[in-house]
């Protein structure tokens, strides 16, 4: 084993191999965080739709969840990246592939904005279907009396969701949502198949350039473990912080 390899100068970027890991971590986090925004907002909407008694919103949300849950993530990645631009009108498709504005400015990005955008859309919409299931489960775990009491107080149904059901449901589902977030962060590595040089891709590149595969993979693995532990730690803290005394068991007991 030769850990000094990380201090050697890499052939591009004017930095060491250790420096190559930096942009990798950054892209992993950027893809995950942008995708999480989509997953959380869209997933919450879909989850609420699945709990209402209105037939059409429920059917739409159920169809969405079934479609996105039953196609492998990697296949979805290819559908967004390769297939979607071809199905659009030609000019719009080309705009996506070539002229997408750089809304995230970062050095050492050896791929175009379309790769990043496709990865974010794919991961976000895939994870939204899983978040929707968690939100639905959270809302359904509340006693029906909560809705009835809210309506009896004169709240409209949207108000019941906003002031009564969702504030409780979100607290209850913090543990499963934590694992959904960790899943999105791990799944972001599938973006390497369409050319996004995130952490896994960078560690493989280092191994290909230096033949120090063990060292390169160990470094990436350690970074993944550190980020995972950090997220778990932060979410435990959040769970304790927002717990409603006497209603939800304290952190550790979980859901």
């Amino acid at each position, binding site marked *: 084993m030769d850990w000094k390899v990380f201090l050697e100068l890499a052939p591009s970027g004017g930095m060491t191999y250790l420096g190559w890991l930096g942009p990798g971590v950054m892209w992993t986090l950027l893809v995950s965080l942008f995708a999480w925004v989509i997953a959380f907002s869209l997933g919450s909407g879909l989850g609420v739709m699945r709990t209402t008694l209105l037939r059409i919103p429920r059917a739409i949300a159920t169809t969405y969840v*079934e*479609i996105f*849950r*039953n*196609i*492998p*993530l*990697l*296949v*979805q990645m*290819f*559908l967004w990246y*390769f*297939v979607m631009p*071809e*199905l659009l009108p*030609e000019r719009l498709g080309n705009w996506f592939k070539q002229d997408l504005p750089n809304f995230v400015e970062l050095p050492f990005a050896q791929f175009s904005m379309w790769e990043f955008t496709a990865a974010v859309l794919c991961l976000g919409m895939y994870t939204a279907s899983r978040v929707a299931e968690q939100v639905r489960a959270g809302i359904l775990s509340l006693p029906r009396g909560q809705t009835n009491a809210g309506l009896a107080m004169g709240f409209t149904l949207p108000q019941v969701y906003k002031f009564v059901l969702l504030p409780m449901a979100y607290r209850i589902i913090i543990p499963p949502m934590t694992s959904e977030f*960790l899943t999105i962060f*791990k*799944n*972001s*590595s*599938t973006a*390497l*198949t369409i050319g996004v040089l995130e952490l*896994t891709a960078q*560690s*493989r590149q280092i*191994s290909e350039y230096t033949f120090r*595969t*063990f060292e390169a*993979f160990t470094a*990436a*693995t350690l970074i*993944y*473990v550190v980020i*995972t*532990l950090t997220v778990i730690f932060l979410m435990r803290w959040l769970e304790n912080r927002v717990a409603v005394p006497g209603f939800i068991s304290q952190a550790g007991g979980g859901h």
Partner: protein
Amino acid sequence: MDFDWGVIWKNREVLWGGMMLSLQLFAIALGGGIFFGTLLAMARLSSWKILSYPAAGFVNLIRSIPFIMAIFWFYFLTPMLVGKITGQQGEAVGPFTSAIVAFIMVESAYYSEIIRAGIQSIPRGQPWAAYALGMNYWQAMGFVVLPQAFRNMVPIMLTQAIILFQDTSLVYVVGLKDFLGAASKAGQLSGRIVELYLFVALVFFIICFGASFIVKRLQAKYAVVR
């Protein structure tokens, strides 16, 4: 854009071969994952720290890295370790074998968490009663605890199996010709990537949606009455 759906029929043999490889990988990973997952879960619940600590470490490590990273790891480690053991260098292990090792390892970590929860759902009195009847550890586990635990776990294990089937598409990253890999290759050769990827998505959807529908029906029919 104009479609040419005939390309799917033209490539039927390649696609069929890819599907067979996917199914093979799925079956081996499922069997191996459940078998080693059970052993891992038993090790984790053991009162011997020399068993429980390494098992917990392995499971948590695998679960905190991406599946693709784990595939890369075992793709690199398997030929090296086999080479060291047998003394042969180089091509002793093919890519398919390495992929199988990777999938069994990762799935056994995932399954061990499910199985551990299942074992822990069995009241403590059950193994104690078994010991009181004179059974040893393996008898108590094999005849009393595990049969009950597995019955509780069947729905979750089937759901995980559907996820595993979807995950087999990840072997694409090491260039194996599974269903997705075969379609991708055929798409590049014929220039008809759109049709082939849409077809792959449709086939996966039909299989997985059908399977999860059946799982739901079974769950309703065979729910354990308490």
